[in-house]
């Protein structure tokens, strides 16, 4: 995929990324994994995992991370600029027309926004399923996914801590999560003679 194509694709994603991260992920999954096959669901999960540990807007970071994967630093820059451009321009227009708009946004806004948000929730569940299929493959993985969700909802725990804790669990107990065989260069020697 050429850089202008990448830029244009992320403008489209930025234009439709209502409701923040969820729809952004749905659109990236749709355009780059299903339609163009330049990324996999695992790539998206990887980008989410490491950007959740870093401070800042996760959506912008996932776009930067995947933009880098697709086109190096120029790809990362163009993807992010494209992604932010529609939001920036729209907010700018709203800022300029602020006084007029607050008077006019009346009865229609709430039901329309509710309809939009309900659809975002539905689409996000489908995205969770598709991203989860390769990522959540074991019983322990299912438990971790459900625990992260429940702890986040019930105790409002910070997502960064939950990701960190689950990652450390993965380092300590990789076989719980269906570890793939390590490449030869890292495989400890005694493992070879065990069998």
């Amino acid at each position, binding site marked *: 995929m050429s850089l202008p194509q990448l830029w244009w694709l992320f403008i489209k994603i930025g234009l439709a990324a209502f409701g923040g*991260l969820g729809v952004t992920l749905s659109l990236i999954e749709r355009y780059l994994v299903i339609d163009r096959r330049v990324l996999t669901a695992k790539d998206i999960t990887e980008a989410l995992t490491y950007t959740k540990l870093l401070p800042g807007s996760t*959506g912008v970071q996932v776009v930067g991370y995947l933009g880098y994967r697709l086109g190096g630093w120029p790809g990362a820059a163009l993807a992010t600029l494209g992604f932010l451009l529609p939001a920036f321009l729209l907010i700018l227009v709203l800022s300029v027309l602020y006084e007029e708009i607050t008077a006019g946004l009346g009865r229609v806004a709430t039901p329309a926004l509710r309809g939009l948000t309900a659809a975002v929730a539905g689409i*996000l569940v*489908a995205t969770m399923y598709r991203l989860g299929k390769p990522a959540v493959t074991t019983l322990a993985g299912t438990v971790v*996914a459900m625990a992260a969700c429940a702890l986040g909802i019930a105790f409002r725990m910070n997502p960064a801590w939950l*990701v960190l804790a689950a990652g450390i669990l993965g380092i300590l107990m990789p076989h719980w999560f269906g570890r793939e065989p390590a490449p030869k260069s890292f495989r400890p020697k005694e493992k070879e003679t065990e069998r």
Partner: protein
Amino acid sequence: MILLELFLYFALISMLAFGGGNAVISLLERISVEQMRWVAPQDFAAAIGFAYLTPGPILITSTFIGYRAAGFAGAVTATIGVFLIPWSLSVLAAFQIRRYIQHPWLQGFGLGAAPAVIGLLGITVFALGRYAIANWFYAVIAGAALALAMFTRVSPILILIGATLLGAVIGPPPG
């Protein structure tokens, strides 16, 4: 001078946003309303509403605050301030993690963290649903969107437009 202040404060806010933009909304309010008085309290509430109404990240609120504080230059400065450092960090991470991705520790970390990351999306679903699904009408919209996204290749953009129009035209008032 105000541009420098905008840049530094928004950069600071972004550096504290562990877990995403939503984590610093209250800090953003404290700095831009109470401490720096860039916007009035009701303006801040409107800014958050605008950010939800428009596509893109919630921290695009910064563009609005920057504009109210210092016009177009303020909008640009605040936007760059709030996104530049986190963006650089994530691209650096992509660069570094790709180099060491085969290391067993990084592999293990990825294996364990991936399910948690998927589970965290459930929190967003819960928050969105609690706001949107005020009655059966919106539950039907959510279910239809799920079915379309799951079993058909209808574009998510079309689903969103359709749901918004349905809500605007025949959506019953909440309650």
